[in-house]
């Protein structure tokens, strides 16, 4: 696996790559709008996801205003509060993070990193984006329909989600389900593409065990998503039928607003099992691409090979597989069969082992490195801290009996924000600073970047670390107002106010980032093709930004793994994957 250059690898014949039929754009429309180029689709995905993500950010401000200063803002009522938390959660998890990691980073990086000209099914790839856009528009439209968006919580648990005691029962819930169904259709088209491209379109010499971990992370996450999203799909269809046609998949005999309803014979727990059969893998669908990307950021900016590459690959695959047998740890207090607790607590805590290995290997990569504290590296360090913190609190919630007092409190909110909110977003931001030069040919401003990092990282930590202790105290989540409760001291309200102030500050600091993105597009320092002196193929393209078809006449040939940094004897501290063994310049006097 590890190709030391001076040992010499011979016998790889010169490239004889048949010319692939590419779908060349014929007009402005097919170049920039209905483009079949994965890089354009990636940017479309990223911009759409970021736009709807900004809506979620504003919703979080409104929630924090209400939580920090209850009773102050007359324009927020209890119904709206529930609508805000629901839409914030759903947008962040599905429409932002999933779409950005897979549709955004996946589309941009997979073909470039594996040495392909494009995705294998470019037309389907384009359709994937347009269906995703439609899903986003349907979701956004719920803000403007009678009754507004659904306020059922992002988990959409029936019977509540479709009964009249919940806001958005008219249109909101129907459009939410429709939007999810569309999202899954769109994702499936893109996801099949990513999987087939990784398996079939790797260039000569790019064995699976030479893939950068970014590709391993996105690839495994995509396979998981293709297996997990169908559970959400059927749950959405069945809930829609319960709501529209009066079927009773999830609805037992019950009373609605004092009247016996027409429902009967269904099971609310069935929905929860389906939802979390999707929902838990979903956590790792967001986390695994982040794991992969952060590995590459750390390795590149520490000028050192990732430590324990094979273990890292197996950890990704192992986590992916295990994540399908832990879902009911979200349901310890749901009233399900109590004996399930033993099984799901055990599987959940076992997942901590491959996850811990990944953390050890990240920090061991830093050991005896040559650490350049550039903005992507800072975000990677911020990721490690927030991920370790959030991962460890997962050991509380996964351990069935410990979960009993903590479930449905602010401890859970703090935990999942740390582990699948802040941590992956640290990676997203680091990755944008890292790959922006490849996408645009210009560097992002470093001073603004460092300011952005410190405010975001320290701020996010100050928001979510103390929040765990509110949960430990017993403060429940999804509460419009805490009201009078003897166990909640006044100091807890002060803490809530503090958290809100910090949250608004962190939120506004993102505007600095947006400004940086826009300003650097025109005024940023020219980056050249490989500003970080990285080894992976996307940095070795003949043009920056890469042209249509990615490579010139010939596809690159891969001679080595993705992590040949600081190889002893080599003159440079990095050797690109496509550099033939004999082309490596040696340090003078070194044995050849």
């Amino acid at each position, binding site marked *: 696996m590890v190709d030391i250059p001076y040992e010499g690898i011979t016998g790889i014949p010169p490239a004889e790559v048949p010319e692939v039929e590419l779908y060349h754009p014929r007009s402005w429309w097919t170049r920039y709008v209905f483009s079949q180029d994965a890089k354009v689709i990636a940017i479309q995905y990223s911009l759409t996801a970021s736009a709807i993500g900004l809506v979620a950010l504003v919703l979080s401000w409104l929630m924090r205003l209400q939580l920090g200063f209850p009773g102050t803002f007359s324009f927020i009522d209890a119904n709206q509060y529930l609508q805000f938390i629901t839409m914030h959660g759903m947008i962040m998890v599905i429409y932002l993070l999933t779409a950005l990691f897979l549709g955004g980073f996946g589309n941009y990086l997979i073909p470039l990193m594996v040495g392909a000209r494009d995705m294998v099914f470019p037309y389907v790839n384009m359709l994937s984006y347009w269906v995703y856009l439609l899903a986003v528009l349907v979701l956004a439209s719920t803000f403007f329909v009678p009754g507004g968006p659904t306020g059922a919580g992002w988990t959409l648990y029936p019977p509540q989600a479709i009964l009249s005691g919940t806001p958005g029962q008219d249109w909101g819930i129907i459009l939410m389900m429709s939007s999810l169904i569309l999202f899954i259709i769109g994702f499936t088209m893109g996801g099949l593409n990513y999987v087939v491209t990784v398996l079939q379109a790797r260039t000569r010499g790019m064995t699976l065990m030479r893939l950068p971990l970014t590709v391993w992370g996105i690839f495994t996450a995509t396979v998981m998503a293709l297996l997990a999203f169908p559970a959400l799909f059927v749950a959405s269809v069945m809930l829609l039928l319960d709501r529209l046609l009066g079927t009773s998949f999830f609805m037992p005999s019950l009373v609605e607003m004092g009247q016996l309803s027409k429902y009967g014979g269904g099971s609310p727990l069935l929905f929860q099992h389906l939802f979390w059969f999707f929902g838990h893998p979903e956590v790792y669908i967001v986390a695994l691409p982040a794991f992969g990307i952060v590995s590459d950021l750390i390795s590149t900016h520490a000028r050192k090979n990732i430590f324990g590459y094979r273990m890292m690959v197996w950890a990704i695959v192992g986590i992916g597989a295990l994540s399908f047998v832990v879902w009911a740890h979200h349901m310890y207090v749901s009233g399900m069969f109590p004996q399930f607790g033993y099984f799901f607590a055990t599987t959940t805590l076992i997942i901590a082992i491959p996850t811990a290995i990944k953390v050890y290997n990240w920090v061991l990569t830093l050991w005896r490195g040559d650490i350049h504290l550039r903005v992507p590296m800072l975000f990677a360090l911020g990721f490690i801290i927030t991920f370790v913190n959030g991962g460890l609190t997962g050991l509380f919630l996964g351990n069935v009996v410990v979960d009993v*007092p903590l479930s449905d409190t602010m401890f859970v909110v703090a935990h999942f924000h740390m582990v699948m909110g802040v941590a992956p977003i640290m990676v997203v931001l680091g990755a944008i600073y890292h790959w922006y030069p490849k996408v645009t040919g210009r560097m992002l401003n470093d001073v603004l970047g460092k300011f952005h990092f410190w405010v975001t990282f320290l701020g996010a930590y100050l928001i979510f670390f103390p929040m765990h202790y509110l949960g430990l105290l017993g403060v429940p989540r999804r509460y419009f107002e805490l009201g009078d409760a003897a166990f909640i001291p006044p100091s807890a309200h002060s803490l809530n106010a503090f958290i809100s102030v910090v949250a608004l500050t962190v939120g506004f600091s993102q505007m600095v980032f947006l400004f940086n993105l826009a300003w650097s597009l025109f005024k940023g320092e020219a980056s050249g093709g490989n500003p970080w002196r990285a080894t992976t193929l996307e940095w070795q393209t003949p043009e920056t930004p890469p042209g249509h078809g990615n490579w010139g006449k010939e596809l690159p040939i891969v001679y080595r793994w993705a992590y040949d940094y600081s190889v002893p004897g080599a003159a440079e501290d990095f050797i690109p994957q496509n550099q033939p063994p004999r082309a490596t310049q040696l340090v003078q006097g070194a044995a050849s």
Partner: protein
Amino acid sequence: MAVALILLLVAIGSVLFHLYSPWWWTPIATNWAYIDHTINITFWITGFVFVAVIAFMAYCVFRFHHKEGRRADYNPENKRLEWWLSVGTGVGVAAMLAPGLVVWHQFVTVPADATEVEVMGQQWQWSFRLPGKDGQLGTSDVRNIAPDNPMGLNRDDPHAQDDVVIENGDLHLQMGKPVKVLLRSVDVLHDFYVPEFRAKMDMVPGMVTYFWITPIRTGTFDVLCAELCGAAHYQMRAKVIIDEEREYHAWLEQQKTFAELSPAKALVKATYQSGGK
């Protein structure tokens, strides 16, 4: 080295916050101190790992940050180190999981001498029911719910007649007596949540769920709903009062049974229909 120092301060600050913050769990009121102990074990183990990882990382940043002429080591793998770390992690995980599973076994094993109490949730209030002199709760069904039978008890069930029904009131429990809390909902999911009890469980329409506790101190405790149940979720409140035996029985004496409640209401209705003649 400012970055390394800040990273280290994040770890130290977190530990200090843990030790000195005023926000900690409520004084426990039931037998579930075992749960608190398990949380404490988990805090110790995870706290150690957290500080160790961050401190190591901060040291690396301090010691190995880029300087002119520095070159990184080339060090792809170290099988032995990786296996030792995996085994060590496994031991730590087992040290948290084992006590957790033992306590879970206690949690799901209801003692034979536990008395039953029923809590019913509906949007957005709590009702309670205790078995009457026969010591047994009568059957119930959502379809029986009527203005004079809000808990949907089965009128033909003799066990139901003497059940004590408490609507819009507080629940009293007796000190030291194990009690199995049966949980039922007639509309959406709710969750009977008293922070001081540690135990909680969702209430699901169409099924009866439960948890059990033994109260260990007297007092008045807030009941909250811990499962999102619609617009007024945050207002769904009641109180549980844990009494010594004498006060408990004094309270119980004053409560009305299902039989006492229904005819009274039926009588009012009959009078109204006959025009008061």
